[in-house]
């Protein structure tokens, strides 16, 4: 292969590995209901499949910073890809939850190595440092945003195990980046010169925290509560990455301050829209997620450029930037999870009361109403844990196909339950919107602090 073609192939392969490492933060979200049922675990237990990965990436990324001054990026990337590949296979074959969580921790370690070592190599493979850094940032942003949709498609087409098995060849192919002499020739980095990157990294903490609201909560809502299924859920959630890509020309034309400020408002606006949905509507949710995507696409590029400035000490700065993003995801998960759990518990109680009201007031004969009510009670009792009872079935078995009144009662019941549970997400979305509003704050504080008295 000619050197230019080999270089191009290496850039694509490495960008895919970076995207997958970022996507792994959220890729498993659409499979959580399946994992919950298969491993017969609790909600906090299954949440560790997501949290463990992000926590290890955050901690390992910060810990790797000094190693980049002593080690060459190529061996670090090799180690990272091999660890990531092995751990991905182990995740895909895991027989119980403990093994899966341990494998996810190892996968996080591999991802941290890949993400830290890939930026200097990406820059070495590009014509200019700026191009290399931009490719790395774009791969990361796309990966983070596209994760749930990709996971949803793989879960629907195969199973949750396919999510992890699919990642192994991506990691293996990325090894070709190490075949390019320019990548292998890179030496250890000199200490990164002093730069004001703290504010940008704090901004990334809040931006990725807000992303938890947009992706994790929306996925849980459309798949579990609205019963759309992983594939249809993936279509709805895809509005976010698509909008993030479409807004790129705007992002390039705006100043960093305008991009971060306006993007934060859009991200918060999209999340507020999700919090105040007036009806169960996948289309409306997709619009709100699209607004979130516009905001995310405007916020992340300038923050990434500010957190990884210049060409000196790129890897060291990348580790902090990666650590900040994953710390934001973990922070948001830790804060938002109890809020959504409480909201859904309350929503579940309201849903039960509303379902009772709908059945009592349904304008159907008592000869249908009583069997339906008893069948609904039985449906609640026989539904395995982790699964949503099929509350439409008792109506369908009692003439919903032919009788308009029974059909109408069935639809009213399903609507009442979905509405109450959807409202249960409100405060969690608003908390995520608060994260979005905090994105520009560190930059603002840093600006004021640097201003001469």
């Amino acid at each position, binding site marked *: 292969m000619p050197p230019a073609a080999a270089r191009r192939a290496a850039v694509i392969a490495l960008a895919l590995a970076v995207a997958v490492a970022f996507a792994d933060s959220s890729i498993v979200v659409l499979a959580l209901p399946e994992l919950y049922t298969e491993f017969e675990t609790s909600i906090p237990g299954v949440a560790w499949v997501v949290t463990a990965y992000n926590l290890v990436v955050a901690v390992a990324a910060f810990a790797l910073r000094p190693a980049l001054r002593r080690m060459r990026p190529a061996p670090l990337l090799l180690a990272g890809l091999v660890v990531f590949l092995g751990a991905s296979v182990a995740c895909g074959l895991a027989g119980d939850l403990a093994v899966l969580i341990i494998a996810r921790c190892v996968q996080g370690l591999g991802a941290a190595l890949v993400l830290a070592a890939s930026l200097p190599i990406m820059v070495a493979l590009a014509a200019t440092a700026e191009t290399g850094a931009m490719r790395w940032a774009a791969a990361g942003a796309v990966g983070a945003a596209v994760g749930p949709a990709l996971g949803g498609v793989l879960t629907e087409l195969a199973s949750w195990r396919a999510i992890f098995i699919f990642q192994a060849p991506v990691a293996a192919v990325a090894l070709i980046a190490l075949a390019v002499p320019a990548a292998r020739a890179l030496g250890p980095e000199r200490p990164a010169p002093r730069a004001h990157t703290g504010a940008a990294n704090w901004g990334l903490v809040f931006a990725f925290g807000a992303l938890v609201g947009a992706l994790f909560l929306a996925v849980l809502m459309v798949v579990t509560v609205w019963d759309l299924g992983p594939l249809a859920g993936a279509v709805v959630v895809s509005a976010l990455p698509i909008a993030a890509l479409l807004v790129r*020309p*705007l992002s*390039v*034309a*705006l*100043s960093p301050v*305008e991009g971060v400020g*306006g993007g934060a*408002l*859009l991200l918060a*606006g*999209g999340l*507020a*829209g999700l919090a*105040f*949905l*007036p*009806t169960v509507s996948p289309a*409306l949710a997709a*619009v*709100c997620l699209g*607004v979130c995507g*516009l905001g995310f696409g*405007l916020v992340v590029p300038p923050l990434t450029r500010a957190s990884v400035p210049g060409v000196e000490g790129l890897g060291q700065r990348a580790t902090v930037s990666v650590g900040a993003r994953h710390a934001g995801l973990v922070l948001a998960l830790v804060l938002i999870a109890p809020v959504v759990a409480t909201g859904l518990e309350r*929503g579940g*109680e*309201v849903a*039960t*009361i*509303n379902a*009772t*009201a*709908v059945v*009592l*007031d349904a*304008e159907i*004969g*008592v*000869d*249908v*109403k*009583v*069997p339906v*009510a*008893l069948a609904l*009670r039985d449906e*609640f*009792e026989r539904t395995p844990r982790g699964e949503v009872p099929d509350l439409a079935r008792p109506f369908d078995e009692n003439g919903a196909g032919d009788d308009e009144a029974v059909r109408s009662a069935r639809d009213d019941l399903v609507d*009442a339950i979905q*509405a*109450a*549970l*959807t*409202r*249960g997400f409100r405060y969690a979305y608003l908390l995520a919107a608060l994260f979005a509003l905090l994105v520009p704050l560190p930059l603002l504080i840093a600006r004021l602090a640097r201003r001469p008295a």
Partner: protein
Amino acid sequence: MSLSRRTARIVLALLVAGAALMVGVMIASGARDFGTSLSRPPCTPAPAFPGDGLDATLQRVVLDGLEGAACELGATREELVLSLAPSDIRPRDIRWDDATIQRAVRSGLVQSIDQAEDRGSLPGPLASVLRAVAERAPVEFLINRGGDLAGIVDAVRSADPGDLLRLLGRIDPGDLLDLIRP
């Protein structure tokens, strides 16, 4: 596609304004009440169950009875019904024991039957039978054998009303209760 800084600022301003407008429209379109409880506060008069005939009358009697029982307990009609449900779907803050619930349900149903009889919407013999059932049949029996009761209503529907009333008039409620008591 490259945008000038000025155009980009205008587009950004429009997007932000559009997002704010979207949230405003959503709130104005009913987001505030979306997913809230459909229960009426306790002791609030409820609209009567619509319809004519024996089926609608029976449903009105039962629903009015439940309203009355719930009012006596200071609860909503739905809380009262759910307090009779299996523990996994029972509201957490049930504050009454089973005996209190049964007493309230019987009293509410009997009152509702009396009112329906006074209004003339329930024939006297049928009111006597229903009153006897409401006073003496175990509430669990009424729930678990509800399907059978629905079958009886089906039979009632297909029977000649005159014959049925004459038949009901000859039934001794006590004997009936002895028959259905588990």
